[in-house]
């Protein structure tokens, strides 16, 4: 069907509140990534899911950040007790596979969620 979708497109919240960001990957894609894009910082890797394997959480900046992927499809990134430094665009990407050496490693990106923490 359509490409990767993310919701909401914009989220403004107050410091200390929790937020949930949603990603709907392309149907059939086994790999799903979350990145954070800040001005001048490029794309910061957060977490990656590959099929039924345990997720790689090595990029999560603190224990306030968590993510889950239900049924191998939709993913939710949760930020608890938001801080002003969490303000950024959060990008989700999916790919058919995520395996070094494969020609199917192309990531398809969603439009992102712009998070502003006041």
């Amino acid at each position: 069907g359509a490409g990767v979708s993310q919701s909401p497109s914009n989220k403004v919240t107050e410091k200390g509140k929790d937020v949930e960001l949603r990603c709907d990957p392309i149907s059939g894609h086994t790999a799903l990534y979350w990145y954070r894009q800040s001005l001048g910082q490029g794309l910061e890797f957060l977490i990656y899911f590959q099929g039924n394997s345990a997720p790689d959480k090595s990029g999560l900046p603190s224990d306030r950040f968590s993510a889950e992927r239900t049924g191998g499809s939709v993913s939710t990134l949760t930020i608890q007790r938001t801080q002003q430094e969490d303000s950024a665009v959060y990008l989700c990407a999916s790919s058919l596979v995520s395996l070094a050496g494969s020609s199917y490693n192309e990531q398809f990106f969603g439009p992102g969620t712009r998070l502003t923490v006041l």
Partner: protein
Amino acid sequence: AQSVSQHNHHVILSEAASLELGCNYSYGGTVNLFWYVQYPGQHLQLLLKYFSGDPLVKGIKGFEAEFIKSKFSFNLRKPSVQWSDTAEYFCAVMRNRDDKIIFGKGTRLHILP
């Protein structure tokens, strides 16, 4: 430590000039390499990728990149840029030890008409 380095943060060129954007990575094992582009107001999209075979890779819109293993580099080139190439360009590396894709900090390219 940063695994992917893009040396040029902001590049300004005139139309028809030649372009080369640098990308180096620090991982010594087998890698897959990518260049992505983000046009103003649009999603990130794949420009080209290397996964095996010919180290000179051709992508969309006249872009190409060369994988030089000995230099850990994957520089992006275009012989003659156009105003429509104004965008931010990201180099990315997939490491075979964990299949994770890591991005560089990006290069903002501004083409003067």
